[in-house]
């Protein structure tokens, strides 16, 4: 797989403040990469450096084979965190204008704009001024403006923020469609569920530093797996099962029923604990192996960094 985006030892300082520290990662062509982290993690600064809007203090960035993204800006699509469109323009004019800046011919850009708006159910609104559209509609128009020219690399800064669940789903479909057509997508978010559903790989950031870089399974493997147990059991007995690291009691019901969660040791197998529980005759009514989410992984990886 070829590399669409590569960052090597990138640092960005604003005076005494370090926004990004020694960041390195790569995104392969056609991948959807989630760029995750809480607010202030350095995501927007990194995106601005990738786009060539600000220069790194240290390190190098290669975008679509170029050392400077500005040289290949026509092959990049960008949706900024804070949306910006000309309010008096119509959606068709806006999409055609930005596609035109990216090198598309006027007629082709307008045809494409109309086609995309129809596809997204905005056909009836295509000739209305953007100021008269709903927030969700405007955001869709903004996204279409960023991708109308069929970019090879699409960078979306917090694309889901402010969207209702229906529009979020629709945006996820657009992102999948871009990747299906061969575009590379890098999107930043602090909502892990979107990344979990969409990404081939994730880069986790906290306080300007990369905390993790890999695929979802690798990310999740950093989070502890849990056993959720329920029954007439003593925590000490559960703690004695093989592979159990620690036990936390959630609730104790009226008739001695206990709900507890047991953290498995890294690499431990939940099946062994289950077999041991049965062989010891523990009075269990529930035994559930709970796989960690990306959010769990994020918490585990960032620890006290957030």
């Amino acid at each position: 797989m070829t590399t669409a985006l590569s960052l090597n030892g990138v640092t960005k300082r604003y005076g005494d403040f370090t926004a990004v520290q020694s960041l390195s990662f790569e995104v392969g062509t056609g991948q959807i990469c989630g760029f995750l982290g809480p607010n202030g993690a350095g995501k927007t600064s990194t995106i601005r450096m990738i786009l060539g809007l600000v220069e790194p203090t240290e390190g190098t960035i290669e975008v679509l084979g170029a050392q400077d993204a500005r040289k290949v800006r026509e092959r990049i699509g960008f949706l900024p965190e804070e949306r910006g469109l000309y309010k008096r323009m119509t959606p068709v004019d806006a999409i055609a204008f930005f596609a035109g800046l990216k090198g598309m011919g006027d007629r082709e850009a307008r045809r494409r704009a109309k086609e995309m708006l129809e596809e997204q159910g905005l056909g009836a609104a295509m000739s209305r001024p953007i100021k008269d559209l709903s927030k969700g509609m405007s955001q869709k128009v903004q996204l279409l403006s960023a991708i109308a020219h069929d970019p090879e690399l699409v960078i979306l800064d917090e694309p889901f923020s402010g969207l209702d669940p229906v529009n979020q789903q629709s945006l996820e479909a657009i992102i999948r469609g871009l990747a299906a057509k061969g575009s590379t997508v890098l999107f930043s978010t602090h909502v892990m569920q979107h990344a979990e559903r969409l990404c081939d790989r994730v880069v986790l950031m906290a306080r300007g530093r990369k905390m993790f870089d890999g695929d979802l399974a690798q990310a999740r493997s950093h989070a502890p797996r849990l056993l959720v147990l329920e029954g007439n059991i003593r925590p000490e007995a559960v703690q004695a099962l093989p592979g159990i690291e620690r036990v936390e009691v959630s609730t104790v019901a009226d008739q001695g029923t206990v709900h507890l969660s047991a953290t498995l040791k890294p690499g431990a197998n939940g099946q062994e604990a289950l077999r041991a529980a049965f062989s010891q005759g523990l009075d269990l009514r529930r035994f559930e192996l709970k796989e960690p989410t990306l959010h769990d992984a994020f918490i585990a990886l960032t620890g006290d960094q957030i």
Partner: protein
Amino acid sequence: MRRLLKIALREYLSYVRTIGFWLSMAGLPVIIGVAIMAPTLIARSAPAPKMAIIDLSGRNLTPVIIKEFERQQSVRVAKAMAASATAAAGPKAGEAIMASFDAQGLKAADVTFMSLAPKVAGAFKAPPPEVQIVQVPDSVAAATSAEAAGKALKPYLADETSRGLTYGAILTADTKSLSVDFWSRNIGLQTLDDRLKDILRDEDRRLRLTQAGVSDALLKDIDTAEPSVRLRSPKSEGDQVSLRDRLPTVIGFAMAMGLWTVILSGAGILLNSVVEDKSSRVLEVLLASASTSEIMGGKILGVAAVTFSVLGIWLTLGTAMLLTSAPGLSEDLVAILATKGLAYYFGFYLVGGYLIYACVFTAIGAFCETTREAQTLVGPMMLILSIPMIFMSQSITHPDMPIIKILCWVPPFTPFMMMVRAAAGPTLLEMVGTGLGMVAFMAVTLWLSGKAFRAGALSTSKLDPKALIMGIIRRRLKPV
């Protein structure tokens, strides 16, 4: 370049597609037209004010006053003829009419008018008299004292009377001097009482001199023997300084004023445009699609096209109006614009001045999220820009004043100050030196503004001029 033109086109269309643009485009010529025509229309539509003279002086002064007002009306008519002839056939025609009037009176002036500008003379309407002297109402005429006359006059000065007098002048005299009780319906009107005072002073003087033994013939000789003053200058084309000699300075001043207005209007539009783009976050999207120079260049070019479109349409309208209403002047104007090179200077200073201020205002706009913030930053700029305005009007009468010459060498003021100076014939060194200074300043402004624009476009905090300048000096910001 393609992106620059695309941004410029969008900028241009975003303005010319608004109703406000066309309203303001049509509004100014209409307002100027109304302002020019209003005094004439008001004077023509309103009847001449009526004045009754109640002469209790015993000196039979009414005919003297009537005669003097008739003479003054002749002067007004002659001047109106000269103005019409100047517009139709040039300044020399106007001067010839006034010369005929001075030598032989209104009839001779009329003959000259007919011969020099027959078309205009045929349609000429003399301005109405400044005042119409009417017969004194009987009840007022019967009064024997100023107090009684005033009391009798009052009802005629009120709006409700059918006689509708505007003024009443009650003349009395004692052994030493004449007195006038000047009654006016409108308190704001003050001009006629002064006029009356002058007439009566001259008559009193004439009477006293006659009583002292000075003959009427000698008095007439003294009155007519005014010193002849001829205005000469090495810069005048003919023997004496004529209106045509003065025209270049007036035109230069008008062009400088126009330049100031056009440049500041354009820069103001740009400032608002950039602030709007910054506050709506469009600027960041644009920066990902085009370089700083393309965005700045596109915006500056687009707004320049808007400004020059307005200027072009106004100039076309103005020229059309000039050609139809004052063909005689238009010939002189074109000659002056071409021979003195004022048109070329205007083009040069328009481009230079616009670029300087457009760049500065664009950079300021990039740091502002709201127009209020922008106004705070632009305030000091406007104070600086008022300096040439103060001195531009002075340069009509004193084009070679040292302060004006010095200001010409200050690059931000060069476009405006040199535009007025250009008509006065500055030296080659002054022209070339100030021009080069302006171009160099323009280049530095372009460079600095480009850097500032980029820093401002991505900034989220308020402008810190010190940090910005230090950043530029340390070359932390590199052009996109």
